[in-house]
């Protein structure tokens, strides 16, 4: 089978699998998020936590719950990482430094999973399983909970209540993430991913050198790593490591897992707002951007060969696993940067300027196509609010989306939302570039070196977590700066989303007439895509010009 045919088959198989999941999974998520019944195990959780499962929270209370939960999670994980050398199954790993522990805690709680440590060298099995893997479940569920509250802003009228955070969180974990992760962990084990409690084992490499490689409960963590768009690898090499991602088949499964929830959530949205046509517009924009990105990266990696090694190999194979090849790596790279996953099966640093630049641009889009679990949907819905506002004016009415008016109040929150991430990315990268000490962390000079810094801040602010590599980021400065950016980049947008939800829920619905801007047609999908690309393009164009563009146009 030629590479091209194999590549196409992979893409088609992936598209078919996601498409087939769209209705059942989307409907199922809508069901669990709207059902009135509690499961017995859920009741136990509520009782243990002292929560009332039937309470309905005002948006500010919902927000307080999100923030309090995140704060407790960060503190818990920080403590865990600092004390792990005193705990069992530590495999003799040392205590983590304060800045790195803060960075890692912030990273996993915010669904970013930026790793300034090397998994096999820094962490024991217990922390991996009960610290990181637990956050992989919880952070993914928090995203879905917040988007659920946001959707309730559209469905509810004349109330300030947007649901119950604890119920949303618990149900997503218990009824969605745990069962799915369990099933797919078994699939991964069957396909060759390891799952054991072995310590370090010596291996002799081809060149004759010797390596110490730990075993571990990898498959169980791998499933939720992808499913929850987390991306924090058990090993430093992440999904490029053969223990995490041994074959082309597991590679495909992992891409499927990291896309599936985010691509199906628009369906959930359509079902919950009672107009399934709305889900088609949203998912169409996601698919369009995703397909364009996959195409651009693949074409760049196959054809715009910018290194000598690439010439000889007939493709940009540097930094890519031979067992996966260019097609599968490009597909993974596009998908992981368009969701907030950040798992990698190849080194983005070694991509062609066009392909590498595209991975940065993907993250700059705000991770909306399809984005992180929950966060992708609320991201694109906020952009839809902006698009509806401008387009709504052009049809001569006070803009309204799904029967809710977009007034100054709504626009304030939506504007602040779209302001947050670019401000973090650009200010962070700007400060890093202005400080001579931090510039020294770059391993490359010129535009490529700048791209590394830009990539790091883009990845942190957008809660992606993948790295361009080539940046020595385990310094106190980078650990602290990126840790703060991850926290602000995750939680501040949630504040605005929930405020927007509260504001929308308080409104009385406006009836739909022929004068209402239709948001279920291809016209609106096209408009939304244009707004996304133009607004993001305009914001980041100067920075991209000095990084990947300058490099690519040389």
């Amino acid at each position, binding site marked *: 089978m030629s590479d091209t045919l194999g590549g196409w088959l992979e893409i088609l198989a992936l598209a078919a699998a996601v498409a087939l999941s769209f209705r059942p999974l989307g409907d199922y998520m809508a069901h669990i998020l709207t059902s009135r019944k509690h499961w017995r195990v859920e009741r136990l959780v509520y009782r243990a936590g002292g929560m009332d499962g039937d309470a309905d929270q005002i948006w500010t209370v919902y927000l307080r719950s999100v923030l309090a939960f995140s704060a407790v999670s960060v503190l818990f994980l920080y403590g865990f990482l600092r004390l792990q050398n005193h705990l069992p199954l530590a495999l003799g790993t040392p205590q983590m430094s304060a800045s790195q522990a803060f960075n890692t805690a912030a990273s996993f709680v915010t669904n970013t999973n930026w790793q300034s440590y090397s998994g096999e060298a820094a962490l024991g099995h217990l922390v991996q399983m009960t610290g990181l893997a637990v956050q992989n479940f919880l952070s993914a569920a928090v995203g879905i909970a917040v988007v659920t509250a946001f959707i309730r802003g559209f469905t509810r009228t004349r109330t300030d209540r947007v649901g119950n955070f604890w119920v949303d969180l618990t149900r997503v974990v218990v009824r969605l993430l745990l069962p799915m992760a369990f099933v797919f962990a078994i699939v991964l084990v069957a396909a060759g991913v390891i799952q054991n409690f072995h310590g370090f084992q010596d291996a002799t490499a081809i060149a004759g050198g010797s390596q110490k490689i730990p075993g571990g409960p990898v498959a169980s963590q791998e499933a939720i790593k992808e499913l929850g768009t987390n991306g924090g690898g058990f090993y430093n090499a992440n999904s490029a490591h053969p223990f995490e991602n041994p074959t082309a088949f597991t590679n495909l499964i992992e891409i499927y897992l990291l896309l599936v929830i985010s691509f199906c959530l628009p369906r959930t949205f359509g079902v919950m707002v009672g107009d399934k046509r709305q889900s088609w517009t949203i998912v169409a924009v996601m698919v369009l951007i995703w397909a364009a990105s996959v195409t651009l990266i693949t074409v760049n990696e196959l054809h715009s060969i910018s290194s000598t090694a690439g010439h000889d190999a007939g493709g940009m194979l540097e930094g890519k696993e031979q067992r996966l090849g260019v097609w599968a790596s490009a597909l993974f790279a596009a998908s992981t940067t368009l969701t907030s996953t950040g798992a990698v099966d190849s080194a983005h640093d070694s991509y062609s300027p066009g392909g590498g630049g595209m991975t940065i641009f993907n993250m700059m889009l705000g991770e909306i196509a399809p984005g992180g679990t929950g966060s992708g949907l609320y991201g694109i819905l906020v952009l839809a609010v*902006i698009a509806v*506002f*401008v*387009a*709504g*004016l*052009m*049809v*001569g*009415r*006070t803009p309204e989306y799904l029967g809710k008016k*977009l*007034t*100054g109040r*709504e*626009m*304030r929150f939506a*504007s*602040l939302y*779209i*302001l947050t991430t*670019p*401000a973090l990315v*650009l*200010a962070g*990268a*700007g*400060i890093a*570039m*202005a400080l001579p000490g931090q510039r020294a962390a770059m391993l490359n000079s*010129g*535009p490529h070196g*700048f791209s590394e810094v830009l990539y790091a801040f883009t990845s942190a602010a957008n809660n992606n977590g993948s790295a361009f590599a080539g940046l020595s980021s385990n310094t106190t400065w980078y650990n602290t700066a990126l840790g703060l950016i991850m926290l602000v980049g995750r939680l501040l947008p949630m504040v605005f989303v929930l405020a927007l939800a509260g504001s929308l829920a308080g409104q*009385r*619905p*406006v*009836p739909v*007439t*022929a*004068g*209402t*801007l*239709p948001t279920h047609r291809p*016209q609106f999908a096209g*408009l939304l895509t244009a707004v996304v690309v*133009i*607004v993001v*393009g*305009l*914001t980041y164009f*100067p*920075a991209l*010009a*000095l990084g990947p*563009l*300058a*490099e*690519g*146009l*040389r």
Partner: protein
Amino acid sequence: MAVNRGKPAHRGGTDPAPGGTGRVSGGLLDPRQLLRSFPDALRKLDPRVMARNPVMFVVEVGAVLTTAFAIKTPSVFAWVITVWLWLTVVFANLAEAVAEGRGKAQAETLRKTRTETVARRLADWRRGDTAPREESVPAAGLKLGDHVVVEAGQVIPGDGDVVEGIASVDESAITGESAPVIRESGGDRSAVTGGTKVLSDRIVVRITSKPGETFIDRMIALVEGASRQKTPNEIALNILLASLTIVFLIAVVTLQPFAVFAGAPQSIVVLVALVVALIPTTIGALLSAIGIAGMDRLVQRNVLAVSGRAVEAAGDVNTLLLDKTGTITLGNRQAAEFLPVQGVDLEELADAAQLSSIADETPEGRSIVVLAKERHALRARTEGELAHATFVPFTAESRMSGVDLDDPQEQRALRKGAAASVMTWVRSAGGHPLADVGGIVDGVSASGGTPLVVGEVLRQQDSSTARVLGVIHLKDVVKAGMRERFDELRRMGIRTVMITGDNPLTARAIAEEAGVDDFLAEATPEDKMALIKREQAGGKLVAMTGDGTNDAPALAQADVGVAMNTGTSAAKEAGNMVDLDSNPTKLIEIVEIGKQLLITRGALTTFSIANDVAKYFAIIPAMFARVEPGLDKLNIMKLHSPTSAIASAIIFNALIIVVLIPLALRGVRYRPSSAAALLSRNIWIYGLGGLVVPFAGIKVIDLIVQFIPGLR
């Protein structure tokens, strides 16, 4: 839609408003206006004034920075950019000043009417007081509730209600309409406006407004924009524009460290130029002008809106309540058809109907003569032409009118009138109306029309025959073009409800003919109020017109309440707009102006943002091509040099504001259609146009500025 193209500007009986040049468009921009407004534009450079407009404030701060830089390290480039940045700010102010200037001119005319008059106040006046004590006070000294007397030739000193007497009043000062109107005590025509002139008779007026708060004062304040507050939608748009400004500010400020790393640190001038080119200056500059011009377009149509908020609400209206009479139908019923009974010729009936109506001066009677002439080519005969004719006028008692023709050989009497009366008349003369008369009469009634029966009695020497000839179908005539207009409204997503005092049967027939979506028959003010509340409960916005005092609660409840100027002061107080022409059809135009206002804002925002793409292609290569030669590939316009490229982008950015001022004042073209069609059209014109136009514009400017010595 094809039918609507090329339609005259004012249809459906709308009177052309003075100053209005066409459907939902403003007057043309006079270039002299630009010059006249220039001093005002400079005055607005005061930072305290500028701070209200965040986008242009950033430009002004940038201009100050580049000025400082240009003084410190002078170069042709620095000065060119500095001058054009200042011009950008001035042009923005100019747009606002021109928009305000048009209002000021109108205010000036209004002020002239507010000449100092001396009021003849009546102390302790009571109704029926025959010899009231009179005292002269200046009009400004009148208080609420004072009574004044005004006689022929005098100017009414303040707004109020006539409490005694009847007079003809010249209201041309505020309406521009020279025909005098009648104002009388009691009823719905009691309101008088200060500054208007009594032409005949004597009235006593109770003052209903404080000095300085009269209708004319409010009008002046409104058209001058003195009390202008930002409307909700303007606030929302401003928030979006401010946040875009912040995003671009951050993008440019953080660019400097990147540029330093790349070995191409940028001067303050270039960075400021980049910020100004990127932030949405076009819409930022024109935003307030668009709002003022929207109010102004209403004023040109003789409609005064109490606030910009009301104009915006008009664009959002879902339901229009329209009074039947005067809005949907002409004021009077008209003959539509002659329906002969069996055995009678149609021509014969038409002839008889015409004869019996010759002396009938009522509009209905005239319409019968006209119908006979138009439909049956029967020349209208004059009264003198008929020998021996005695005309029988209509009385409330007989409920018939007609003519007796006393020819020597034959006496012929013709009567037309209410069915029962004419039938009785025929029977009394020995006739037996055929059975099918009843059927015809019922049919006409059922269709919502009014039947008039025509009867004839012929007396020869010895014999006499009496018979019914047929029925004249009188009906309410729907104004021409209303159906199309309602179809348009439906496409715009607006539901029309006809309000009438008629019975449900008649109302239904007219509603169907006119093409309104719904009707409210035998409507009382309470019914109207209930209807408005019901619609609003469903989240709909309701617009209505009204004039009577009993309309006031509904006018206040409606989201857009247009009071007729002929109406009572209570109605005018309750509504949020006043139509000086008292033309209820104008409600539709008001809705269109409201929509046009929002569309203009959206279109120019889209245009402004789309412009940035071309500006990037001009400025980014200019900034960095020296150190990264590859970036010169982005210079797709092949601009002459880095400095000429940046200057061209900034000059384009400033000039486009001036170019678009007329569009901002006039509003973008609006043709009623569905939201989807409107959106497509505006995206193509202003989105795609906004992408393409600056490429051409910047290239052309570059071809010129490259010859400026010292700009390389």
